[in-house]
């Protein structure tokens, strides 16, 4: 019988993370105003320490806690490190913003840490309820963070929309859980796989239930037609939170989806073949709608939202191609998640520091950026090229890998569609680039010179930003030129799930 005490040490990173959050909250109470910046550095230090800790502790551990509620395996380790690292980047890139534009800094970082904890648990959980609670931990933090710019009507609105739609989706998900439970009596992924494989004349409630669970997750990854919240929330939320939405929560949801499908569906081979079409359809619609609507956007955040919908479509195509006979697809999905998140990180970091300088977020505001912020422009450019999937950046290799996987699993049409829609995406990415490099700087509101109006434009981006941008660009080029080390790690990770 396994109780609380049962090899609990494997959860040390999680407890430590929660502890770190509490620490931030408490330190916040004693820090004088204006010194709150330390909290960011504190959490960064903590996160880095946690990365090291988890690597040391959990290196090739293959354990399943609480008779299979939680998995401590290379998959969860991979994502743990990934999420923690992303957390570091997010905090770095949000420091200036939080300091100058938000109140309650301590709570901001605390909630951020909690949400990271939620993401870690999502990647670990192997049971529906656990997954759901972890997901709610993430979502709640995000609801709050989205509303964090309290006085901004847009921020409130986005939070309201987010929480309402989120609650509905989680209700639907839960209803699905209840249906699955009422037919199979189980909620663990592997048991579901067994049930699916065995199920013959079982009541259709099972299938409908599975469908509803998918709805809940599709909402999280903002796949069409469950995507409509995304643009509004992205636009309304504070900039760093938007970045976090695009990078963290999406990745976490996909990690969960990957494990659910990998452990719960794929083993039931012939059932899975029936379900593949659902994913294919969702993927196709998402990539098309996302990229097409993005063509018509003027607001950078909103554009990034639609582009992220499109990318969700690509990743879903990868999920579609999951199969027992090769883990190419799961590798591809994970590779894509990493590459996409880092690239997005770079793009958002550039946009955030531009926002910090000017407080503008329209595409046309970027005019002439290359002249007064060459480094920023270069980073933005590389990021966009990478998102568009051009070499020598991560975007190319990851797309190539993923689409190859999709094609080899017999979904050549889907791969072709994905390639085509990434052509569409190239168009609006280039439009941003055109503003940055080709168009002259727009005149300020006063009709005067932009630089006089925003002297910040002449100064260098802040150190944390430079760190994020520099390391991020280095990373995407590295992934674009020689991804082998990462992919080998990924192969190890995906073997844990794709058994």
């Amino acid at each position, binding site marked *: 019988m396994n109780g609380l005490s049962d090899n609990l040490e494997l959860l040390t990173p999680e407890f430590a993370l929660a502890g770190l959050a509490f620490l931030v909250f408490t330190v916040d109470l004693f820090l004088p105003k204006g010194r709150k910046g330390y909290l960011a550095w504190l959490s960064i230090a903590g996160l880095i320490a946690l990365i090291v800790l988890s690597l040391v502790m959990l290196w090739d551990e293959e354990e399943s806690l609480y008779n299979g509620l939680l998995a401590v395996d290379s998959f969860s380790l991979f994502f743990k490190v990934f999420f923690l690292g992303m957390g570091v980047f997010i905090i770095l890139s949000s420091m200036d913003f939080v300091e100058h534009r938000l109140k309650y800094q301590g709570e901001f970082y605390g909630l951020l840490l909690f949400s990271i904890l939620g993401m870690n648990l999502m990647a670990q959980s192997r049971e529906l309820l656990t997954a759901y609670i972890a997901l709610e931990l993430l979502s709640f933090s995000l609801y709050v963070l989205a509303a964090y710019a309290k006085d901004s009507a847009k921020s409130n609105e986005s939070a*309201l*929309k987010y929480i*309402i*739609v989120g609650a*509905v*989706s989680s209700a*639907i998900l839960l209803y699905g859980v209840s249906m699955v439970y009422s037919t199979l009596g189980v909620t663990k992924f592997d048991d579901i796989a067994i049930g699916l494989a065995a199920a013959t004349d079982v009541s*259709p409630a099972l*299938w*409908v239930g*599975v*469908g*509803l669970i*998918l*709805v809940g997750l*599709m*909402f999280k990854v903002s796949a069409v*037609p*469950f995507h*409509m*919240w995304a*643009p*509004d929330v992205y636009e309304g939320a504070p900039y760093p939170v938007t970045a976090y939405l695009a990078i963290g929560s999406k990745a976490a949801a996909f990690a969960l989806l990957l494990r659910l499908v990998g452990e719960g569906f794929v083993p039931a081979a012939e*059932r899975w073949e*029936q*379900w593949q*079409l*659902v994913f294919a*359809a969702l993927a196709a619609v998402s990539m098309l*709608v996302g990229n*097409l*609507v*993005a*063509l*018509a*956007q003027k607001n950078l955040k909103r554009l990034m939202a639609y582009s992220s919908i499109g990318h969700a479509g690509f990743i879903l195509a990868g999920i579609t191609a999951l199969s027992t006979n090769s883990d190419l697809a799961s590798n591809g999905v994970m590779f894509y998640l990493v590459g996409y998140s880092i690239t997005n990180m770079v793009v958002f970091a550039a946009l955030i520091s531009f926002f910090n300088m000017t407080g503008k977020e329209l595409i046309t505001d970027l005019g002439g950026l290359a002249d007064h912020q060459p480094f920023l422009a270069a980073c933005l450019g590389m990021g966009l090229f990478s998102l568009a999937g051009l070499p020598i950046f991560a975007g190319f290799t990851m797309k190539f890998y993923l689409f190859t996987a999709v094609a080899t699993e017999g979904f050549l049409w889907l791969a072709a569609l994905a390639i085509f829609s990434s052509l*569409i995406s190239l168009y609006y990415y280039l439009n941003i680039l055109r503003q940055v490099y080709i168009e002259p700087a727009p005149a300020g509101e006063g009709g005067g010179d932009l630089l006089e109006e925003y002297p910040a434009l002449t100064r260098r981006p802040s150190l944390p930003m430079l760190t994020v941008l520099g390391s991020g660009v280095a990373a995407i080029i590295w992934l674009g030129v020689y991804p082998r080390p990462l992919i080998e790690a990924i192969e190890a990770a995906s073997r844990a799930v794709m058994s």
Partner: protein
Amino acid sequence: MQWAWLIPVFGFAAAPIIVVFGRYLPGKGSWLSILAIGGGFVVFWFVLNSWLGASNATSGCFTSENTGLLTCDYERVWFNAGIVGAAGSVTLFWGILIDPLTIAMLGLVTFVALMVQVYSLAYMKGDPRFGWYFAVHSLFAASMLTLVLADNFLLLYVAWELVGICSYLLIGFWHERPKAREAAKKAFIVTRIGDVGLLIGILLIWREVGSFSMLDAFEAVRTGAMSEGVATASAILLFLGAMGKSAQIPFHVWLPDAMEGPTPVSALIHAATMVIAGVYLVARTFPLFEAYDAVPLLVVSIVGLATALMAATIALVATDLKRILAYSTISHLGLMMLSLGAFGYTAAIFHLMAHGFSKALLFLGAGSVLHSTELQETGEMGGLRKVMPLTAIVFSIGALSLGGIPILAGFWSKDEILVAVSDNRNLTFIVLTLFTALLSALYMGRAMFLVFFGPLKERNNQVHDAPIAMALPMVLLGVLALGFGLISFNWPGSFGGFGTFLFFGHGEEFHFKVWLGVLSIVMAVAAFTVAYLIYVRRSISLDGVRSRNAGILKVIENQYYFDEVYQWTVDHVVLVFARFIGYFDRAIVNDILVNGPADVTRKFGIMLRLHVTGNVSSYALGMALGSVGLGIFVWLRVA
């Protein structure tokens, strides 16, 4: 003999040197080019000599099955298309072919070119692009010599095109003059159209024979390896090229305008290089033409005759001196073609040479006239013999020679042609040919009398005769125009007459149809007398004739409206079509087929974004519908 390749190489070497270093050399390097062509002339004699001494035993020499002539062929690899020996690969050669035809042409070209260049020394003195002129000149001559020497079609085509481009450069030498510019363009493009035929013909032959060597082609025809259809087709295609270069109807339009170039250039073009290339090509590839039942030859003769007649009539009414000469050239080229078409191989080449010397002479004469008077309109000249006697004499020699006055070169060659035509073609041909001959005597007389006889206009009192550098070439050419005809006889002893030296099939001694000879002599003399009476004595007035045939006259004076028709076609067909395509590419391909889809996509995106209404209830609705859809799918597929 295998050193014959040196003849053109001199020129090819001289040209770039003059272009690059000319401005640093004394005399802008003109002497270099004269040296080059002179060297070629010298080598020519060696070649002739060694050919006379050669036999089947000599390396590379053999008696051709087609011509029955001693032919020598030397070649060196140029490049391989495809790996050597692999299936479907071809090897291309630098190759020279030497037989009497080649030798005759070599002599003509080197000599005339040399004369013209010497002449140009004085004529072009002080021109800003003096050096450039000589550079192109020697390139021109060199290309023509290559063309004459080539033993394979590829090399021939190469030289052919080079000749074309050089004529382009020389005709457009004074490119500041719009007329010169247009004339040059016209010359190149018109001949180029013919060249398309030539190239296609060559490729057709290659496709059949698998080699570009002319001898192989002839062999294939002789042995019947080349089918009649292909032989005929390729012959006619080659003839297209020849028509282009030799200004046969309907490609003749470029030649009259070509006089926009410096006059010596016209001399070269009309006498020794450009235009005779066509005739040479037909002669060179004669086996193709006379193969099977010689349909191509009929075409050749008809085209030749038509050209000769048409040009002669125009020359009769033209008033511009150089234009008269130009049309006379066309007319005589027509005669050569006619003769070839009538199996008059020897006659054609003979006439080619005789005409070459005479026409060079005439142009140089004309050149010296307008060098000193700066006039081209015959109307404003007259009586010039008083002020420039030498020119008058040599010009008259040339005119009489072309007019067919006995013992002058032109007489014999024309007579040969008449013989050939009378032997192998029907009466109409003979009559028309005679008529052409009559006309040519007439307009030659007209030109001669208008320019040099009659009262001298006072504005021409002060003009002087040609300087020595111009005079010398004219004299030498004059001598040839006088005496060249004599080589057609079989002299007791070594030389059996031109007919035994250069022939197709079997050599024949010089022979003479008395009635034809008499007839032509009478006609020629009559023609000149009439011309004298009209233009000098003024005892016959043409006004009556003019007024009665005003209509025809108008047509003729407008050169049968060829230019107008072509211009119209270019303006209203070619250019309109081109503009349409240009418009099509922008308006249809670009604006509709390219921007269209792009815009549609963007519009679609703009429309599609409306589904995100901003109202959270509709988002929930969307999710509900999505779930329902998913449920329905589940019902359909899974459950």
